[in-house]
């Protein structure tokens, strides 16, 4: 196959392929202000990979933890003061922006901040797989 035809074939294949969630990474920007996430619900597709860019404009630290109820409970009861880079689990220091990339499965999940009092204060939301 000549190079030009090969390129055309690739374009054609890409055009015909179904929009697969797993082949691209969507970026979702989330703000935190007055200890509140700017989103309280996020829709994702099964198997979708999402890059979350979280900006904290508060003068206090926050977290963004994605996981099921068991994960949220574990963090609420945990003592980890700062989260190392781990997919879906980040600490966002005051005034900073931090990103994390997470690939979802088939189940709905939750997200929240588990610094003392923050989850109860309302820093939580849902990730709905639709």
């Amino acid at each position, binding site marked *: 196959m000549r190079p030009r035809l090969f390129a055309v074939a690739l374009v054609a294949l890409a055009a015909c392929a179904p929009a697969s969630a797993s082949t691209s990474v969507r970026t979702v920007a989330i703000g935190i*202000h*007055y*200890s509140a996430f700017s989103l309280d619900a996020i829709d994702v597709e099964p198997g979708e990979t999402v890059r979350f860019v979280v900006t904290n*404009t*508060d*003068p*206090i*630290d926050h977290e963004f933890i994605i996981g099921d109820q068991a994960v949220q409970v574990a963090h609420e009861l945990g003592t980890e003061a700062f989260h190392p880079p781990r997919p879906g689990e980040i600490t966002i220091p*005051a*005034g900073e922006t931090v990103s994390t990339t997470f690939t979802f499965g088939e189940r709905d999940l939750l997200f929240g901040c588990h*610094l*003392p*009092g*923050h989850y*109860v*204060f309302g*820093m939580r939301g849902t990730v709905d797989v639709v």
Partner: protein
Amino acid sequence: MRPLRLPLAIVLGLFALLIAAPAWACGGLVNTNGSVTLVRTTTLAAYHRGIEHYVTSFEFAGGTGEFGSIIPLPGVPTKVIRGGDWTLQRLVQETQPQPEAFALAATAGAAEDRAQVILKTEIDALDIVVLEGGGTAVGDWAREHGFFLPPDAPEVLDFYAERSPIFMTVRFDASRAAEQGLGAGDGTPVHVVIPTTNPWVPLRILGLGAGPEAPVEADVYLLTDLEPATLPAPLTPGLATRLPQDLHPGLVLERSEAASPSLLTDLRDDKGMEWLPSSGMWLSYLRVDARAGDLDYDLAIDASGAGQPSPVAAGLAPEAASDPAGAPSYGPAIWTAIAVLVLLGVAAGRERRRTGRPAV
């Protein structure tokens, strides 16, 4: 729910006295683990000839851990000194003469990126820093200096900084407390002198870090040259007692009378209180009883006789919308009516929910 008990005594005219037993109490106290350990807080605010005298007693909670508080101020203080030995207790005695209560008390740029330290001092085991800066700047400073700020702190700091970007942080030094023999429950009074034309008493800060359902109780004493008008206007004790038991009245005016000669004499005899006139002062005693979630206001005071406390000073109106120096002012009667209507509305709503039919 964490119950808060904040006996707060505020005297205006000699404007202000705030007693905070546990350092958490009188401001937004900040423990390293985020817990609210407020035991008891008392404050005296007094206002006379354009000077607010703000006297707060911080009670050492014991132990070796550090704790402190953040208190918004209505202006830049000219000095922060050790308060007198009995001023706060004497005010409590004057209005709440139960021997038990007295015994307990006796033992006891706004937009700057960085907060500017405008005053630092030590009083006994207390490290006191007065800051000027916006809510974020002050929050940054507090965080960088080891204060733990609860999740509602960013909004509350902005709430105050928009009106007065002056905050006082207070921290107990546990090692100095030990050297000085301070035990749990020992109080250290602090007297802050603040020239201002716009006195107010911070109330919203009392609920910092508490859940919305947590009760906040405080005693506020005002000593003023004239009988003051306040905003929000308080309920009368009679009206407060007619509210449903589970409904907090907010502010109740328990006493309003000419300050007695004996009270003024006793106060003037205390250290740093010689500025207080020997006669002609008005004593008001307000009791704060509110859900933390409802305590989204401060206490504005007009002691000029005009009867027009500022909605801005009370945190009920934005700065630009209603400047106390010029813009429209709302009469206290209107606010009283609104407060009563809201309370009655809530009561009626509860009655409807309970009976399934409209309350009458």
